[in-house]
């Protein structure tokens, strides 16, 4: 039909599309202005910090800027034999400047991350450099300590030349780039992060399972009980929500400690003997118990909101058609709650995987998670780039789970209320 291809005009002769755009422009501007504060807020509080974290985690400019001339001179060095006098002279020049600024200590810390043994030889070099004569720096530096004559240490310095590095990420997985430039794992007794990652996943997984098992009946009760009882139950579910996280964790400490209420009860009913009280805190058990209790509402609420929408007549229909109560539940009710299960599990798992305060207080050595390690590097070692790298690994882990969930269940199937 020709009328379809013809441009449609309004009564004033303006093309309809133009007219429509004009009419909607005002609304669009209004809508944008309404969203603008939130957008601005998100950029400042979310996009910017995460971007900064990403940069920080791969930033390795510090050493690059401390030894500019050395790295320039090293460009022609093939790394096979000891570098020649030109490199040593440049290194000497950079080093004197660092000593004047009193920054050689930082250099030694940084280089020590790459290869152990730099700390002492830099200290020695500083003392010796005061008496250095002009010229032939190679001989003079090499004579300070035998490691300065070891080509391995010069290669270690060269490895710090690039401005950006992925080393922190490797370190987060207990791996590093060795002298030959290959990615290898650290020795078995020094692998601490992998254990933590696995433990974090394990605890998050089981906390999610426990939460699910406990929340499902509660949510079902909430959705089916008459109003006056369900309101009371809802308050019981939400009450811990309104209590400070720290207070709740502390109260678990009172309950779970060896002389605590739970243990007293066990002894009281003769389950354990008094001198054989089980340790339920400062280990995984503590983390499991406290985290499950704290994260329970996050499972109950999405489940409840989904169950609330399931008409009781569906179960009745299932039964009247001949399904046993179990069949009616399993074939009719349960599939309809999957969106709520998905939402709840995803929520609890993601919260659990980054949990910090509770495992720090009741987890002890065997119950701490990767986020405690991140906090440790933020506060104690001040290795912020490593903390950032692990933070981002955690974030990408969450994104991978989200992606998997979307593949398997479909994100449209999520229902938070």
């Amino acid at each position, binding site marked *: 039909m020709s009328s379809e291809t013809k441009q449609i005009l309004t009564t004033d002769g303006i093309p309809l599309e133009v007219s429509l755009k004009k009419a909607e422009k005002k609304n669009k501007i209004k809508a944008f202005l309404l969203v603008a504060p939130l957008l601005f807020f998100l950029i400042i509080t979310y996009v910017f910090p995460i971007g900064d974290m990403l940069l920080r985690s791969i930033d390795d400019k510090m050493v690059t800027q401390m030894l500019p001339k050395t790295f320039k001179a090293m460009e022609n060095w093939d790394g096979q034999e000891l570098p020649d006098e030109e490199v040593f002279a440049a290194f000497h020049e950079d080093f004197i400047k660092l000593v004047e600024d009193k920054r050689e200590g930082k250099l030694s810390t940084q280089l020590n991350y790459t290869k152990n043994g730099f700390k002492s030889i830099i200290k020695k070099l500083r003392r010796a450099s005061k008496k250095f004569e002009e010229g032939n720096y190679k001989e003079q530096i090499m004579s300070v300590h035998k490691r300065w004559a070891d080509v391995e240490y010069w290669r270690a310095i060269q490895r710090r030349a690039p401005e950006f590095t992925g080393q922190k990420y490797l370190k987060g997985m207990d791996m590093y780039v060795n002298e030959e430039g290959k990615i290898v794992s650290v020795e078995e007794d020094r692998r601490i992060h992998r254990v933590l990652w696995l433990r974090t996943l394990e605890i998050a997984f089981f906390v999610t399972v426990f939460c699910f098992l406990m929340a499902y009946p509660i949510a079902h009760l909430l959705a089916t009980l008459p109003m006056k009882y369900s309101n009371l139950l809802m308050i019981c579910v939400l009450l811990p929500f309104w209590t400070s996280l720290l207070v709740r964790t502390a109260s678990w400490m009172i309950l779970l400690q060896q002389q605590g209420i739970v243990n007293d009860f066990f002894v009281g009913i003769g389950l354990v003997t008094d001198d054989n009280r089980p340790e339920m805190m400062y280990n995984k058990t503590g983390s499991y118990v406290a985290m499950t209790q704290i994260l329970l509402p996050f499972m109950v609420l999405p489940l409840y909101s989904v169950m609330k929408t399931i*008409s009781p007549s569906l179960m009745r229909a299932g039964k009247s058609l001949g399904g046993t109560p179990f069949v009616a539940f399993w074939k009719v009710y349960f599939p309809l709650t999957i969106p709520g299960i998905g939402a709840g599990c995803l929520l609890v798992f993601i919260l659990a995987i980054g949990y910090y305060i509770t495992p720090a207080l009741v987890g002890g050595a065997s119950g701490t998670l990767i986020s405690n390690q991140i906090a440790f590097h933020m506060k104690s070692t001040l290795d912020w780039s490593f903390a950032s790298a692990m933070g981002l690994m955690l974030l990408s882990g969450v994104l991978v789970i989200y992606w998997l969930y979307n593949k398997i269940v479909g994100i449209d199937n999520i229902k938070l209320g």
Partner: protein
Amino acid sequence: MVSKKDFVKFDKVDKSYDGKVLVVKDLQLDIAEGEFITMLGPSGSGKTTCLMMLAGFETPTNGEIYLDGKAISSIPPHKRGIGMVFQNYALFPHMTVYENLAFPLKVRKIPRDEADKKIDKALSMVSLQGFAARMPGQLSGGQQQRVAVARSLVFDPQLVLMDEPLGALDKNLRESMQYEIKHIHESIGVTVVYVTHDQSEALTMSNRIAVFNDGKVQQLSSPDELYEKPVNSFVAEFIGENNTFGGEVSDISGGKCKVKLGNTEILANPISVKGKGERTTVSLRPERALINPSTKMDNLHKGKIEEVIYHGDHTRLRINLLGNPEFILKVPNSSSNLDIKLGNEINIGWNSDDARALDPK
């Protein structure tokens, strides 16, 4: 087929939810095999409770229900083999139409090919062939309703319960579905217990209607009898339109009674009045009263036309008659031009047989 008179039997059934109020009081009801029986009543009259007790979702507080001679109070719902159509269809939203219909067959472990045949048959019965792969959400209200009916019949139950199944449909669709359900019932001869609060639905579809009020069956009879011969003023009021006069019986003799309304008297048919001096409500259907009757009628009174409402095929008149300003009269528009103008005084006559003197309201 030899049909049993008491295929379903409610025997002295009481039901109370809170131990204070009886929702169903001493219910005695027999339903014959192959019958289409409707429980009709206002909301809260106990009709849905009766249905739920029959389906097994509620237990009688007292008394027993028999299905085909067996007491069923202790049988759980899934073993009763009763088909049910719910108020909001209760189709399983995560299953296709096919899977919805296959559900009762699967739990009965009916082989796949036999099940397929049954499903085809059930779908063609409600003329929904070709819809098997659709999800319930993709169907219109009327189609969902038909799927629900098909699902309740697919496993060949002897008894099907329907709980206000047409309540959510619009008027036209509701009417066509009424006929469809009636025809399905006639063609397969299943026993149907139908619950509704819509009297026209009940009158169109049922063999018998049980009118519920206040937890009791007020009258159980065929639609025409229910309309023509209501046994009490609740039924008369609830079914169809009704003109009432409240008065006192002044004389009973020879199958007729005189009822005194203020300073006039009318003749009526004594249904639930026994003697002189009793209060009564006289009930008269609008179409039983005529204007200027040509034949002799034993009641003839003058009334003033208060309102004229045109209804297409007929005209309704509101008349102030014998102190009742709400007296309604239906005049077919084909009838010869009567002098029906607002404010006119006209003669209205009716037979005393049609004026039923019932219990006082």
